[in-house]
C-alpha cells in the first residue's frame, strides 16, 4: 500500500499537468508544450520563496501563482497568438518550453533543489501503508481540481462559454462570446494553477531543470489515456501512469521506468487512440 500511495501521488502530478493541457486545449484547440515547464518554474519559485526568502507558505503560494500566470500570459501573447499557421504553434510553444528549461538552468543551476513541504515530513500510517503528508495533499488537490473544473464548466457562465468554444469556435463567436479573451484567460489560468501546485510538486520531485521534459511526457501519456478534453480522463490517466511508473521500477529496475510508460503510450495509441473517456467523432469536411 505504501507503494500505491507513492504511485497515486506521482499520478496526481501527471494528472495536474494533463489538466493544464486540457484547459488550454478546450479553449483554443492548441497544445501548450510548455505546460509542464510552467509547473517546474512553480516548483523553483516555491524553493526560492520558502528556502531562500523564508516567506510564509501562503505568500509563496500567491507569488508562485502570480509569477507563473504572468509567464503563461506572456507566452500566449508572444508565442501563440501571433502565430498564423497552426502547424507552427507546436514549434513555438516547444520553443517556449526549451527557453524556460534554459532559463531555469541559468537562474537555479542544474542541481536538484529540495523544496520543503508546509505540512511537514512525518510519514503516517494510512489505509494500510506509510504515506507522507505531501502525497496525500497532492492526491486531494488533483481530485478537488478535477471536481471543481467539472462543476465550473457545467454551472457557470464562463464554463459553458468554454464548452461552447470547444464545440464550435465560430458559432461561439457569433453568439457573442469573446473567444480570444477567454483563450487568453484560460492560458493564464493554466499558468496560475501550474504555479500554485509547484508548492506541492516540488517536495516530491525536487526542483530541477530537467523536470519539465519528463513531466511533459508523462502528463501527455495521462492525457492520451484519458482522451483530449476530458478532465476525469486526465485524473484516471495520471493515476495509471503513476502506477505503471512505480511498478515497472519495482519489477524491472530504474532503467525501465520510462520504457514501461512508453510501452503504455504505444498500447493506448494502438488500441484506443481517442482515449478512454472520449468518443471518437466522425471526421468532417
Amino acid at each position: 500500500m505504501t507503494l500505491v500511495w507513492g504511485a497515486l501521488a506521482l499520478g496526481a502530478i501527471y494528472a495536474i499537468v494533463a489538466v493544464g493541457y486540457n484547459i488550454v486545449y478546450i479553449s483554443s484547440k492548441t497544445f501548450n508544450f510548455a505546460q509542464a515547464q510552467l509547473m517546474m518554474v512553480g516548483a523553483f519559485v516555491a524553493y526560492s520563496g520558502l528556502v531562500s526568502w523564508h516567506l510564509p507558505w501562503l505568500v509563496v503560494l500567491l507569488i508562485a501563482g502570480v509569477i507563473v500566470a504572468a509567464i503563461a500570459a506572456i507566452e500566449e501573447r508572444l508565442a501563440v497568438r501571433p502565430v498564423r499557421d497552426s502547424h507552427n504553434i507546436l514549434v513555438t510553444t516547444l520553443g517556449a518550453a526549451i527557453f524556460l528549461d534554459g532559463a531555469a538552468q541559468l537562474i537555479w543551476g542544474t542541481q536538484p533543489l529540495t523544496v520543503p513541504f508546509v505540512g511537514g515530513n512525518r510519514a503516517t500510517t494510512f489505509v494500510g501503508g506509510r504515506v507522507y503528508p505531501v502525497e496525500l495533499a497532492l492526491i486531494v488537490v488533483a481530485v478537488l481540481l478535477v471536481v471543481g473544473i467539472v462543476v465550473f464548466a457545467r454551472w457557470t457562465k464562463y464554463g459553458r462559454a468554454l464548452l461552447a468554444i470547444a464545440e464550435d469556435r465560430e458559432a461561439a463567436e457569433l453568439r457573442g462570446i469573446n473567444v480570444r479573451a477567454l483563450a487568453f484567460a484560460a492560458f493564464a489560468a493554466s499558468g496560475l494553477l501550474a504555479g500554485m501546485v509547484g508548492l506541492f510538486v516540488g517536495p516530491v520531485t525536487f526542483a530541477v531543470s530537467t523536470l519539465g521534459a519528463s513531466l511533459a511526457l508523462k502528463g501527455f501519456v495521462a492525457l492520451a489515456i484519458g482522451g483530449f478534453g476530458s478532465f476525469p480522463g486526465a485524473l484516471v490517466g495520471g493515476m495509471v501512469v503513476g502506477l505503471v511508473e512505480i511498478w515497472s521500477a519495482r519489477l524491472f529496475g530504474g532503467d525501465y521506468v520510462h520504457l514501461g510508460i512508453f510501452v503504455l503510450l504505444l498500447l493506448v495509441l494502438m488500441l484506443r487512440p481517442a482515449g478512454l473517456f472520449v468518443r471518437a467523432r466522425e471526421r468532417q469536411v
Partner: protein
Amino acid sequence: MRNSLRAIARRIDDMPMWSVPLALGIAVIFAPHIVGNYAIERQLQLSLILCLLVSGLNLSLGYAGELALGQVAMFAAGAYTAGLLSSHGHTEILVQLLAAAAVAVLVGIITGVPGLRLNSWSLAMTSFFLVLLLPDVISIFKDHTGGRNGLVTMHRATLFGSPERGDLYFATIAVITLLWFVVLRNIITSRHGIALRVLKQSPVLASSVGISVFRMKLLAYALGAVPAGLAGALFANLDLFLSPEAFSFTYATTILAASVVGGSASVYGAVVGAGLLQFGLNQSSDYVQYSLVVTGAFLVICGVLLPGGIASLARAAWRRIVGPVDVAAKRPVPQVDAVARFAGKPLRVEGISKSFGGNQALRDVSLTAAPGRVTALIGPNGSGKTTLLNVICGFYRPDAGTVTLGDRRIDRIVPDRVARAGIARTFQTPNIPAGITVLEAVTAGRYMTARVSMVEAILRLPRFRRVRREDEAEAWRALDLVGIADTAYLEATSLPLGQRRLLEVARCLVAQPGLLLLDEVASGLDEDELERLGTLIRRVADAGATVLLVEHNFQLVLRLADHIVALAQGQVMAQGTPDEIANNPRVISEYLGIETAAAGESSQAGGHRAAGR
C-alpha cells in the same frame, strides 16, 4: 544596371535548378585540400552530419506537416548499430551505413505507426519520448554499449577493404551527404513531393485526390530516418567513440532550430540552417550555458516572424530579382482547346439515411447521375446537400442505404479509396496547398492515375519521366480549358478566390474521374469566369463525364443541368428536368419562395447574360 542584373538572374533561372547545389556539393568533397585547417575541417564534418539530420526532420515537419523530435534517437540507433558492427570487426563503412539506415527506419516505423494514429501532437510526443528513453536503453544494454562510460571498442572504418583516414573519410561523409540530397531533391520535386505538400495543407484534400493520409505520413517520417541512420554511422566512425551525451535533448533542439531557421519546407534550407547553427552558435565556448535559452528564443522568433525560414526569404527575393515569368514563352506544350474523352460512370445513391445524434440530416435519399449529363443538386441551407456529398465521398458512413459508382459499392470504404474509385471533387472553400505553383497544384489531381513508385522517382527512371510529361501536358490542357494558364507559374496560394475555384476544377479534370463533383463552384466567380465555367461544364459532360453539381445559383442550374434533384429537410422534394423544377409549386414555395427578392434579382442578371450571348 538593374536590367542587366535581371538578365543574368534570368539566365541562371533558366538553368536546371539543381546545377548550383550540385556544384557546391562537389566543391565540399574537396574542401580539405582547399582549407587545410583541422578545426574548420571538423566543423564541416559535423555540419554535414547535422545537415543529414535536419533534412530528415524537414521531410516530416516541413513536407508532411508533422513535428517529430526523434531524429536524435534514430541518429543514436544508427550510430550504435555502426559502433557495434565495428566492435565486432565489421569495419566496412558501406555495410555499416546500410545497416544503420535500416535500423533507424525500423525505429521510425515502430514509433511512427502508433504516433501517427491520433493527431499531430502524438507523433511529437512519442518521438520526444524516444530521446528521453535513449540513456535508459543504452544503460540497459551496457554490456554491449558500454553504458555511460561509452563504447570504446570500435576499429577504424574501411572502404572496400582499405582503411579510411583523414581526407578520404572526409570525402566519404561529403559524398554520402551529397547523394542523400540528390535523393531528397528527386523525391521533393516529384509527384510524391507535391503529394506531401497537399497532405500538409489538408488531410481532407489529400484523401480526396486519392492519397492515403496515414501511409503518406508514415512514409515521410520513416524516410526521414534514413539520413539520421546514415549520419549516425558517419558520426560513429568520426571519433571511434560513442557515449550517450552526444545524443542529448539539447542536440535534438539544435536539429529542430536548424530546420526552422533554414526553412523546414525546403531541400537546401537544411544546409543553411545546419551551417548556421554549427558554425555560428556552437563556436563560442560560453554558448553551452545559454544554448537552451537561445534555441528556445530562436524557435519562438522564427515560428512567429519567419514561418518559412531563410529559404522562403531567399525564394521571394529571387522571384523579385527575376521578375514575372513569361508563361507563353516558357510553357512546354502548345495551347490546345480540346476536352479529353471522359469515361464517366453512373452514380446511384439509394435510400441513404444519416443522422447526427437526434438530428436526421438525410432521410431515404435516392438519386442517380448518368454519364454525359449534368445532374444538379439544389436545396436551401441545411437541406442536407453537403451531408450527402460527404456520404458520397466516404467522409461519413451512412446509417442506411447504398452508394454505387459504376458497378462498385463505395459507401463502406475510406475517402482515399473512394477517390481512387474515380471521384474527383472541389470544395466550398477551395483547398490550395502552400509552397507549390498553380501548375503543380493541378498535377496533384493525377496522383491516383498512373502510379509511379518512390524508387522510380528517386532514380528518375523512364517511366517517371513519361508520367511527368503526361502530368504536365494534362495540367496545361486543363489550365487552358478553365482559362487560367497565364497563372501557371505563380504560387498557387496567391490566386484570388475565383481563380482558386477554377484551379480546383482543373485539378479535378486532370484526374479524368468517373464522377466529377462540383461543390458550389460558381460562388465568387466574376461574370466572365462564370460564363467560361458554364460552357466548360457543358463540354465536359458532352465528352462523356458524369457531373454532379451542388449549386446555389438557381439560374446557372436551370441553364446547365439536364436533371435536377431538389432536397429539403433531408429528403428529396422533387426531381426532373429544369422546366419541371422551375414550375414545381413545392420548389417555388419552399426553395425560391423564401428568397423571392433575391431570386428575382438573379433571374434578371441571368437574363442579361442570356441576352449577351
